[in-house]
């Protein structure tokens, strides 16, 4: 019993710390006026069309998403601030048990999509985009199982593979 309790406690702590790291990235930079920080919670359903290419036919899936947070920095990739936020982001991805779902490139733009499930159904999807003078982190959180999240990406993947 004691062992189980300790294990559960550890899991909670791990989850809490992981979530905290991502949120603390947003807290750290979001109020810095050199960044743009946008958050959408309840208004997700109105954005169904924006997910059009990425999450096919899945209003249900969208309803499982609980929020979107976006952090944007417009500076040259050499600037110290840019290097700092990119470094912080890389650490979060590495430490936070994220898996890579998609890597895409178009001219000077790179898009990486990472995901993870914590606990039973706490889903986090991270879309990180990099181009010459801009860096974006889009954090989509939701309540869904690993299968449901896989389905999200197979839609995106299927779309990529079926084009061209």
């Amino acid at each position, binding site marked *: 019993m004691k062992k189980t309790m300790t294990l559960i406690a*550890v899991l909670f*702590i791990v989850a809490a*710390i992981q979530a905290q790291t991502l949120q603390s990235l947003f807290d750290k930079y979001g*109020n810095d*006026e050199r*960044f*743009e*920080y*946008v*958050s*959408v*919670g*309840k*208004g997700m359903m109105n*954005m169904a*069309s*924006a*997910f*059009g*290419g*990425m999450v096919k036919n899945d209003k249900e899936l969208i309803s499982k998403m609980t*929020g*979107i947070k*976006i952090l*944007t920095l*417009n*500076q040259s990739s050499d600037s110290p601030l840019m290097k700092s936020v*990119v*470094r912080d982001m*890389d*650490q979060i*991805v*590495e*430490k936070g048990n994220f*898996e*890579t*779902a*998609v*890597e*895409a*490139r*178009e001219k000077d*733009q*790179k*898009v*990486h999509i990472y995901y993870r499930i914590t606990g039973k159904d706490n889903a986090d999807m991270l*879309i*990180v985009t990099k181009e010459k*003078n*801009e860096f*974006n982190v*889009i954090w989509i959180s939701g309540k869904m199982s690993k299968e449901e999240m896989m389905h999200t*990406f197979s839609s*995106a*993947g299927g*779309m*990529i*593979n079926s*084009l*061209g």
Partner: protein
Amino acid sequence: MEKMSELLEKYFRGETSLAEEKELKKYILSGNVEPEHVVYSSLFQAFDQEKNDNAVVPLKKIVSRNHMFRNNWVKIVSYSGIAAALLLALWIQRPQHSDDFAIILGNKIENQEYAQKYATAKLTKVNNVLKSSMEPLQSLNDVKRSLKPLRTMPDFKSETTE
């Protein structure tokens, strides 16, 4: 279809309404057209392409810090073409939901519609990159190898949380 041929003639006479032009465009780009109309698909595709022509280089933006300025002095700040692509609600409304907001240049805008439109624009851009990318989907099972840091990372061992 004769109707479409007539509509096309009307179009080139400059007499079509916006609704008719929309109908014409839908027909021409549908892929199911009369052979003599195929040539016009490039025309409408050209218009679509032009629509996506956005300012790529950072556009300078006029701001005033804390709404104060001395003797018409204005501070010019660099701004991105992406932000410039947003459609915004014209007036700032009363705070609605606390989790729908935007913080731009240190100003908090508690406007749900604005926040949604901003997020929509960003996601649309990501969509566009994904659509035109030719990179195949990485194996979802391949975790460690597929994790590619965007920049060189400091060498550290992940701490165990206890």
